[in-house]
């Protein structure tokens, strides 16, 4: 068994839904969208209409230029001798063009506004606190800072490498690792989870986050983040959209949209002289209206809102991504490496039986098992001690005893007594090897051990062998501890859904292959990496990547860092070490490994929303042509009335209806852009068929209906 997987267990028991409910107390909900948000963000939206800002969005910039042009025209018309109808028409078009621009900036403002609301609640945790900085920290001589002097400084002044002391009731001044002590910490400000968590020096649970509060005890923390670069700072920057960089797919899409826009500019520019040949020159207002209707304003207006909202959704789920690129990569993941413990099974395995080998009393095995587990801080180790206690054995202290901690390489833990005797407990193969180091093992004994190990494994349990070395230097096997795993419910369906999405799940476990296979069968994963060492995990990731797969994994231990860095999407648990967090490209503040599946979903949803709205935007143009082309030329070529299949009231009402529809559709789609297109795991082809029908075919049909309805209303206005 690997410690990397065990230490994630401390919080995984909490059902994900309960955790999600808790968050809502801390952060605004992500799904709901109310019209009041539009009003609240209006000032911001107006600010964003500045050409200097809008210039970065070529599609909307063109609309703004068009709106400015028609404004000038509308003002000048009375002097140029336009009649009342054309002046009224020009003004109406102008107003709706400006509204189109406004709606676009509003979409972005609303998306950012929601991020800001979250940031505000986060920022509350960043209030400057004072910190007790240790002068001349002596790591070896005085690790717990019992003698060294401290000074009080503002938390903002802390630098990387500083050491501070935090006592119960105080706020931890910055991100760091505990170097001495143990404490319970309230991390609700960051994670929304109200139950305190235990943080202690050494091992994989040593990282603490700035802004969280120590509830009990006293810890010494070494600061690992630079000022202004703590998680909270990064999170605020992300949700506010301040550091948002365009992701690779977004850049590609922007290029496509720009080129489409250029094509339509050429189409409209050529139309004037070409129509002029036949005395059908359209007015400038009409040409601008046509251009705005044709260029992909819908997606152009919503593109940045979609990106911001996608990040936002991730943060809502308490996942902090270092870049938008990582979120996009999550959508492409085809292999998920899932740690068994905490993800597939409910955290802790418990010892349920001691199976002694023939000739060994159960009492002796119980004692040996309990003693060898004193040094094992994992819940499994604790459960062995507890089971022994139930059987009336409580280990006693003995002087000169050396504790042998578990390592991923030895895969054993135990004690060495002063008299040379020793106890070992661990994976059967490792323990057997240890015994063999001291002398040959009778084949019959090895066979009996094997029999018990296989028996437990076949039931999906985990066998741990126990062995002792007596003071004279001979070693014997004593028996086997039966640890039992409980597989989470509902996983089979979830993995089946992933399979439909083309995602393979691989369970990673330190268990032996037989046990692992039994649990894998029960949980319904596609593949298993048993008896995994960090090196094997890394090798597996490389193998998958060479096969063309993109790999996502979670990890928390320092020895996970290489694998986290190698994986395309590496999600570090917030409870994990700083090394793990640095190596991964996301941090899960809830330390919930099942969230990997949510992250993949968010990544996909982000791309789907962009693709779907682009398709919708382009498909919309068909109907707009049928509205505007006959309206422009029917005066000269009455035959083109045949194209007016919507039977629109008049030329001006047709053009105005198309412009109004074009503007309103942006507002109508803001909630969708913020929420993301609904995504249900299914095969690529059925997903595409569905989206093509809804956004492609739907995008062709919807505007026919919308424009007709608006036209019916406009036809009531006198003069149209």
């Amino acid at each position, binding site marked *: 068994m690997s410690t990397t997987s065990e230490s994630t267990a401390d919080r995984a028991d909490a059902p994900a839904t309960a955790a999600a409910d808790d968050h809502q107390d801390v952060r605004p909900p992500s799904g709901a969208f109310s019209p009041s948000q539009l009003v609240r963000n209006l000032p911001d939206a107006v600010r964003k209409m500045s050409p200097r800002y809008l210039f970065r969005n070529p599609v909307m910039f063109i609309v703004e230029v068009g709106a400015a042009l028609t404004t000038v025209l509308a003002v000048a018309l009375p002097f140029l001798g336009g009649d009342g109808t054309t002046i009224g028409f020009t003004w109406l078009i102008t107003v709706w063009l400006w509204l189109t621009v406004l709606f676009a900036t509003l979409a972005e403002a609303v998306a950012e506004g929601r991020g800001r609301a979250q940031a505000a609640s986060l920022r509350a945790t960043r209030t400057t606190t004072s910190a007790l900085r240790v002068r001349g920290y002596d790591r070896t001589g005085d690790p717990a800072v019992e003698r060294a002097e401290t000074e009080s400084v503002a938390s903002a002044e802390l630098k990387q490498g500083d050491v501070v002391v935090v006592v119960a009731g105080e706020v931890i001044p910055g991100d760091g690792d505990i170097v001495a002590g143990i404490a319970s910490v309230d991390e609700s400000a960051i994670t929304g989870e109200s139950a305190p968590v235990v943080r202690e020096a050494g091992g994989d649970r040593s990282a603490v986050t700035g802004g969280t509060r120590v509830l009990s005890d006293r810890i010494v923390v070494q600061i690992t983040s630079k000022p202004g670069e703590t998680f909270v700072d990064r999170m605020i920057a992300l949700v506010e959209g301040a550091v948002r960089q365009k992701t*690779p*797919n977004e850049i*590609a*899409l922007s*290029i*496509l949209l720009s*080129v489409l826009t*250029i*094509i339509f500019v*050429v*189409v*409209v*520019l*050529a*139309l*004037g*002289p*070409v*129509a002029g*040949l*036949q005395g059908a020159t359209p007015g400038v207002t009409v040409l601008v209206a046509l251009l705005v209707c044709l260029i992909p304003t819908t997606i152009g207006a919503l593109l940045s809102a979609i990106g911001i909202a996608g990040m936002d959704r991730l943060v809502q789920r308490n996942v902090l991504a270092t870049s938008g690129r990582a979120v*996009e*990569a999550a*959508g492409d993941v*085809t292999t998920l490496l899932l740690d068994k413990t905490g993800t597939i099974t409910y955290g802790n395995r418990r010892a349920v039986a001691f199976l002694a080998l023939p000739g060994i009393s159960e009492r002796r095995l119980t004692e040996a098992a309990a003693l060898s587990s004193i040094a094992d801080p994992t819940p499994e180790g604790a459960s062995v001690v507890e089971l022994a206690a139930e059987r009336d054995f409580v280990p006693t202290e003995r002087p000169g005893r050396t504790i042998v901690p578990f390592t991923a390489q030895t895969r054993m833990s135990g004690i060495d007594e002063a008299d040379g005797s020793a106890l070992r407990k661990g994976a059967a193969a490792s323990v057997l090897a240890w015994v063999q180091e001291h002398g040959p093992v009778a084949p019959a004994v090895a066979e009996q051990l094997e029999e018990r190990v296989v028996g437990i494994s076949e039931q999906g349990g985990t066998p741990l062998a126990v062995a002792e070395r007596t003071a004279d230097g001979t070693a014997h096997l004593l028996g086997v501890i039966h640890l039992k795993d409980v597989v989470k419910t509902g996983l089979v369906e979830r993995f089946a859904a992933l399979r439909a999405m*083309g*995602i393979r799940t691989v369970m990673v476990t330190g268990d032996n292959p037989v046990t692992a296979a039994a649990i894998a069968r029960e949980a319904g994963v596609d593949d298993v990496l048993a008896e995994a060492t960090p090196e094997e995990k890394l090798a597996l990731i490389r193998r998958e*990547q*060479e*096969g*063309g*797969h993109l790999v996502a994994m979670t990890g928390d231990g320092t020895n996970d860092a290489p694998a986290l860095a190698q994986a395309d999407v590496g999600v570090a648990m917030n409870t994990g070490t700083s090394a793990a967090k640095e190596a991964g490209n996301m941090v899960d503040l809830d330390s919930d490994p099942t969230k990997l599946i949510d992250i993949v979903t968010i990544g*996909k*949803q*982000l*791309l*789907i929303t*962009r*693709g*779907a709205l682009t*398709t919708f935007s*382009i*498909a919309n143009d*068909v109907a707009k042509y049928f509205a505007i*082309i006959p309206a422009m*030329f029917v005066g*000269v*070529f*009455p*035959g*083109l009335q045949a*194209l007016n299949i919507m039977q629109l009231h008049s030329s001006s009402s047709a053009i105005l209806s198309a412009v109004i529809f074009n503007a309103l559709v942006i507002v109508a789609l803001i909630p969708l852009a913020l929420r993301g297109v609904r*995504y249900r795991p299914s*095969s*690529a*082809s059925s*997903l*595409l*068929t569905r989206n*093509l029908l809804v956004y492609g075919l739907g995008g062709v049909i919807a505007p026919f209906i919308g424009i007709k309805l608006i036209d019916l209303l406009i036809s009531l206005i006198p003069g149209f």
Partner: protein
Amino acid sequence: MNGLLFALTVLTLVVALVALGWPLSTWMARTYTTDRDWLVERGVHRLLGIDARSEQRWPNYLRGILAISVLGVLLLYGLQRLQQFLPYSLGLPAVPEGIAFNTAISFVTNTNWQSYSPETTMGYTVQLAGLAVQNFLSAAIGIVVAVALIRGLASRTGAAGLGNVWVDLIRTVTRILLPMAFVAAIVLLATGVIQNFDGFRTVHTITGGTATIPGGPVASQEAIKELGTNGGGFFNANSAHPFENPTGFSNLFEIVLMLLIPFSLTRTFGIMVGDKRQGRAVLASMVVLYVLFTSALVAFEAAGAGSATAAAGAAMEGKEQRFGVLWSALFGSTSTITSTGAVNAMHDSFTPLGGMMAMLNMMLGEIAPGGVGTGLYGFLVIAILAVFLAGLMIGRTPTYLGKRIAAREITFASLYLLTTPTLILAGLGLTFAIPAVAADVAKTSIFNTGPHGFSEVLYAFTSAANNNGSAFGGLTANTAWLNPALGAVMWLGRYLPIVFVLALAGSFASQETRGTAEAGGLDTHRPQFVVLTVGTVLIVTALTYLPVLALGPLAEGLA
């Protein structure tokens, strides 16, 4: 010709295409993948100092194509301007500057737009040493560019080489075009196409008058004209002339020649990328578009337009009696949708909506199946754009055949998409926006009035930008504005897309492809892909051209 007979002949066409295309596609795949050079090819390599084994990255590949094209233009221009000194010039003078410039570009770019009357302008030397050579070369260039793109998509190692342009060009000529054109010329001779060096012959007619009948090496020209989707006729009447296209059978055979290489290349593509299903999906998309647009054109012509055609019994104006409505329409549609531009009937005299379909065939980008090579690469670019959107819609970074479609690829693909419409629309816009030009075009060039007159100009720019070369008739293109303008449009319409396609190919070639796992990705060999690409082509074409079509053929046809 009645409907049943037409259906049977169409069936013959399909059978002939399958029977010839199957081995041809395999042969072409072998041509572009084998290491072995023929003896004659080794000789040419030595003569030209070509290192046949050296791989070229896309800029070098492109340089080769541009070099040979520029050289071709200069040679062809020179030959025309020095015609009076050449043998077999039939006593014709030097070709005027404007025409010579336009024609040089036109034949080098595989457009074969003819703003002159060939039999009274070009002697046999210019025809054979100039125009025919370019017919072969321009066809070969189209094919090798497509092959380069296929190699880019098929590459796995990330080595950015696209092959060797000189080796590819030489092989295309020696192994594909020359042998096929030779056989095709023999067949055409058998149908009655002429092949001689007789010059003009004056004959006395029964009524006592005289007629001057031109001769010439026609069959050899005609074969490559259709096979290489060139389309430049030996005679002004092009394939309507009985010496170029004498019978119903020769008509059918010429249609087969036009479609053969473009359709076959899809299977070559499938073989070369190691997945024949991909080729089949591309073929299916092309066939769907071809059938859709050709059926529409045939239907519009069969239905006729207005009372005049009803009184005449059929829309026979501008059509040859020996072909009739259906075969004229089928030939016209095939010629415009393949980038050939040969005509056996006057498209100007098609019904307004039938004429519109001929324009739309070209406006599709000539991808169904398009010109030799150009059709395939044009289609693949559209497919890449469609797959990009589809990839987003399934929540994956879009890939095609394992190649990522990222910013770089989208840039080249969308610039390709931008080029042709911009050339057509900017050309039209400038023509009518510059007052002096507009007046001249309206007075001198345009023959008809109203929308039909506009259609003549629209057709000319569409044909030039797409390197089709067919003309609507009516328009006088030999003017100070249209000769250079259309020449420039032809040149840019040919080489800008080639630049973008080769850049795209280079970009794909430099991508190392990790394995072939495409789980959860888009399957580009299923009917869904066909629907997706066909839909994309239709929408993009409609959105780009509907306004100008409304002012031309639609205004005329719906009146």
